[in-house]
């Protein structure tokens, strides 16, 4: 960098780069949008949680002192953890298969992963209601196979929220792992096999460690998205499955307690940001993840 500096202390203006004034002008509309639609509103919410009606941390103390809210906080992390673990368990084999097979099977697997990703979360959560309701597909199957006599109450349970969230978030786990596994050269596995490793040993000693960047990216994205998920727990959960997000929704739409909702939102926001900042290296490694 220093070598590039000219005598007068300025870097050479290359036509390959847009000058600072032009660059600033180009990004201004975006900065305005980000400020008006994101930074200012979120800032106002945080401000309100501390300074409205007067400066106090009572709203935050309430989260820590009322057992119900601590329980919700705990449950949010618990559900996010279980969903992430399930998604990893189900997603890893799919990512591996997607990277290893070719031709038609590869297209089929890709379609099965991408079609859910492209479909609205609201539609998929609704589909889960239809599947899990009293006379839904799952209950009918359970009765027909004789596993149960009467329809079970599946909706509005923690299990329903976890199953649906796992399905909704699974592509976010599969794609980062796939993009890393795909780039592991076949030669490495072959070399391990030639040196006497069984297929299981070759997987554990070669493929698994090399896929770690994809796994950590997938785990992180899934966990972060689970923490703040609203639509699915709002539709499939009940009062006994309140998460941070649905509690925020309840405080604003039903109880109109904005300062407290702000404190809850701030807690959720900082938990998310903390994860992102601590693990940003893992997130940055995740190149194959472009669809959001």
């Amino acid at each position: 960098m220093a070598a590039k500096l000219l005598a007068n202390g300025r870097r050479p203006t290359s036509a390959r780069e847009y000058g600072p004034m032009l660059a600033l002008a180009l990004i201004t509309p975006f900065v305005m949008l980000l400020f008006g639609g994101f930074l200012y509103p979120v800032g106002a919410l945080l401000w309100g949680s501390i300074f409205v009606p007067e400066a106090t941390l009572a709203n935050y103390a309430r989260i820590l002192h009322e057992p119900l809210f601590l329980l919700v906080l705990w449950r949010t992390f618990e559900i996010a953890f279980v969903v992430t673990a399930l998604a990893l368990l189900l997603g890893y084999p799919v990512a591996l298969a997607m990277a290893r097979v070719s031709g038609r099977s590869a297209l089929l697997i890709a379609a099965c992963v991408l079609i859910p990703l492209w479909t609205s979360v609201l539609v998929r959560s609704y589909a889960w209601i239809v599947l899990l309701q009293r006379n839904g597909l799952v209950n009918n199957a359970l009765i027909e196979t004789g596993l149960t006599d009467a329809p079970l109450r599946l909706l509005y349970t923690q299990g329903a929220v976890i199953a649906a969230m796992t399905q909704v978030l699974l592509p976010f786990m599969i794609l980062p792992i796939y993009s890393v596994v795909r780039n592991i050269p076949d030669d490495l596995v072959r070399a391990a096999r030639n040196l006497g490793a069984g297929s299981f040993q070759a997987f554990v000693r070669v493929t698994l460690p090399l896929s770690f960047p994809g796994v950590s990216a997938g785990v992180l994205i899934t966990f972060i998205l689970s923490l703040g998920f609203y639509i699915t727990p709002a539709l499939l959960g009940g009062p006994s499955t309140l998460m941070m997000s649905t509690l925020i929704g309840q405080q604003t739409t039903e109880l109109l307690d904005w300062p407290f909702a702000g404190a809850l939102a701030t807690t959720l926001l900082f938990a998310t940001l903390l994860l992102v900042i601590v693990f940003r290296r893992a997130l940055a490694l995740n190149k194959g993840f472009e669809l959001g």
Partner: protein
Amino acid sequence: MANADLVLAEQAAREKRPLAINAATLLASVAIGLILLFLLLPTLIVIPMSLGTSAYIEFPPHGLTLRWYEAYFTDPDWMAATWFSFRIAVATTGSATIIGTLAAVSLVRGRLPGRELLRALALAPLIVPHIVIAVALYLVFAPLGLTGSFYGFVIAHSMLAVPYVVITVSAALQRFDPNLELAALNCGATRLQAFLHIVLPNIRPGVAAGAVFAFLASFDEATVAFFISGVEGKTITRKMFEDIDFNLTPLIAAVATVLTVVSLVLMSTIEIARQRSGQGRLG
């Protein structure tokens, strides 16, 4: 172990291996098939559900009918919500694509102070929980009369959609050779001419992909729409969200199918275009 033993053992292992692998492969294929079913079933089941004749959702449907689609397309409330969502999505596509493309050019090619911070901020709306953004927007929009308003939605959805445009256009710009633009400038073109005639045609696939993502980010968006909709101005997702609890007819399944078809058609177009242009890359 003697050498001969080793050879024998290896032979035995080699003979046994194909059978063992076949059984394992079969088991793995079945397991993966079941996981794929778990992924796909809840996504596509709304389609057969929407065609059932019964007034309650049932599976498998006893008879086939299009009456729920007819009910949807003739209901003034549903049509108003659909039209509202569509107008918002089109306006969002326009504004997010323009704002996002300019921002991507600036971030990739510009000599910008604080570039890393801006880059991180550009992706923030993807990571910050939508419930936080939704509640915050409601708090600020309500006193300004921007709830249930077309312009309020376009601001909110553009903000949510811009990161997708920035990502796709940045990727396209990084593949673009700046020397081509330099050549145009040396031949006497202005910055604007060089951008419009040289840069833009080359990054068009990235801009188009960003535009499609922006449309869907708005059209399918439900969390923010739930909070900033009004009694009059409500989107199709908000109406669906509030009707799910009490409307048990397959009408909701028909609406869900319409949303799914719009998403799948648009996204497949982009994916096919990407495969054709040789940048084929899943996800």
